[in-house]
């Protein structure tokens, strides 16, 4: 069967992102501890002038530096690993948790199903970004946790905050699958609940799962950008003596936008590079989700 254009673009973009994740840090010309606090340049009249970052593109820094003097190209190349893996991790863990809860909700609609539905509605009342912000703020600027621990904890909070919305979506799909006539046949021959889930519900659901999972990755990336604007970075936030917040893990696209957005009127490229990289990633995952949805529709006649 012929692949649709969106699926092709999505797959090419995903392969590109995967390559960036794997070899990006190796290709990066600098590490994150290479900080150029100032630079001395010789002017046309022969005088020497001291410049402060962000520096424009030069032979040493191909696309310039950020406001701390770190090489922007290195940040872009190294950032894919942290940013994309974080989003993928959050989406996968959320799905693994949501699947059994959704199944229980579909099997017991009056108790667990009702509870999931109500929690899902309640969680949409307050924007996810604000809920996550308030929870992460408890430890965000403290040094109780290491960068990796902070990242895992932030991921866990994002998983839990969006869990019931994802569960509710899966539950609706499962409820419609459980209404298929062959399910009555399975019940009558005494098939157990987990056998039904493993052998009959998940195979039917697998087409939707791919689409939903990829959409969740895009949504997590979007959320990470919004959190960055609030100075909540996935690896934690550090405060300088002056109280200025900066990233504990500086090679991350989503947080980078938030961290440097104040500089964008004077140095727009410092913000534009991470913003474009992140947009490309979100677009890739959205295209992949839409492409998969269309592919399923054409191949299996599955809509939604």
């Amino acid at each position, binding site marked *: 069967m012929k692949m649709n254009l969106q699926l092709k673009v999505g797959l090419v973009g995903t392969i590109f992102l995967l390559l960036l994740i794997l070899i990006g*840090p190796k290709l990066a010309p600098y590490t994150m501890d290479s900080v150029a606090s100032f630079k001395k340049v010789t002017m046309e009249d022969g005088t020497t002038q001291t410049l402060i970052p962000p520096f424009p593109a030069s032979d040493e820094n191909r696309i310039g530096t950020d406001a701390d003097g770190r090489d922007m190209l290195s940040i872009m190349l190294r950032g894919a690993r942290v940013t994309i893996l974080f989003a993928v991790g959050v989406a996968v863990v959320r799905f693994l948790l949501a699947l059994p809860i959704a199944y229980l909700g579909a099997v017991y609609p009056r108790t667990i199903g009702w509870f999931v539905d109500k929690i899902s509605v309640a969680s949409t009342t307050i924007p996810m970004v604000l809920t996550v912000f308030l929870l992460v703020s408890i430890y965000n600027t403290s040094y109780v946790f290491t960068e990796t621990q902070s990242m895992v904890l932030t991921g866990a909070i994002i998983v839990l905050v969006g869990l019931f919305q994802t569960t509710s979506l899966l539950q609706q799909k499962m409820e419609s699958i459980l209404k298929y006539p062959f399910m009555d046949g399975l019940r009558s021959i005494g098939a157990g609940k987990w056998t039904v889930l493993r052998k009959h519900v998940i195979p039917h659901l697998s087409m939707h799962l791919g689409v939903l999972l990829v959409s969740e990755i895009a949504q997590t990336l979007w959320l990470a950008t919004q959190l960055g604007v609030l100075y909540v970075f996935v690896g934690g936030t550090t405060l300088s*003596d002056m109280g200025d917040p900066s990233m504990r893990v500086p090679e991350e696209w989503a947080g980078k936008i938030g961290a440097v957005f104040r500089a964008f009127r004077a140095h727009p490229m410092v913000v534009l590079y991470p913003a474009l990289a992140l947009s490309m990633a979100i677009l890739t995952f959205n295209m992949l989700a839409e492409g998969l949805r269309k592919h399923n529709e054409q191949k299996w006649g599955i809509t939604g």
Partner: protein
Amino acid sequence: MSRKLLIVLITLVSLIGFLSYDHYFGNLVQMDDVLRPVPKEELKWTGDRFQSAVTSYLQDMSEGDLGTLSVRNKRQVTSGDMLKMVQDMVVRSAKILVPALLVGVSCGVLFGSLIYFVPEKVRKGIMAGNQLLFSIPDLLLIIFLQMGAIWIDQLTGRVLIGVVEVSNRPIHLLPIMTVAIPIAAYMFGYTVNACREVMQQEFIRTSRAKGLPGWYVFVKHVMRPAADSILVAVPKMAAVGAAGLVVVERLYNIMGITWFFNGAVMNNPAVPRLLATLLICLAVYSIGVKLITSMLRLWVNPSLRKGGGAL
């Protein structure tokens, strides 16, 4: 085990193995050694502090007096009666959020409906454009809008469109556009899907076979059933708008309800009280939108009035 599954598993294991190896043996830098952080003891969170803050907040709320608040955010000191401050913030945000929600939903539904009356190639182009719009983070959208506004201002030689709120001179156009565009993109998708679903029904084919004009069938027979599915999405759009407001208020320098949701000021013990009050306002806004859409759904869907479905 199937061959495909085996390949997927081997790829995953190799990927995880490589990433773990690179994490432990690669050039990882501990940023705490590079930066000079504030001492740990100055940034300590304790359960006792949290408990006393919650108790006093609830007590003050029940008395209807949250006291005064003085917050130093960057170089600006804001102080005054907290409830008055909340009221001003809510008014500022409502001036953006409510028009943006109305404009976004209207535009999304309008374009989503009109797409069925344009040629196939144009339709595909619009769909691709929507996909692109759907994927642009609000921050990048703001940058593009501000650049466009500056370009127009330069072209006309006058400040026609304000790009940032300074000296209490309010700006509305760009913030409303920034919040409305993602809402319109989402609503467009919902409308297209809802209309497509209805158009596959038998009664639509019958109406067309009877010789009724296409636009008449669409307005009278497609839009009404589709409206119910579209209205279901409106509360979600209200949440999308509120989430977008976080970025909008920071980048356009608008002191609205999300202004104090800022990691830099969270160490002020009075700020959580303000945030709790603002969250209550946001919840009221969401519940209000949900109520209005539920009533509209009752109007457009007779089966709901007879108790045939859940609101």
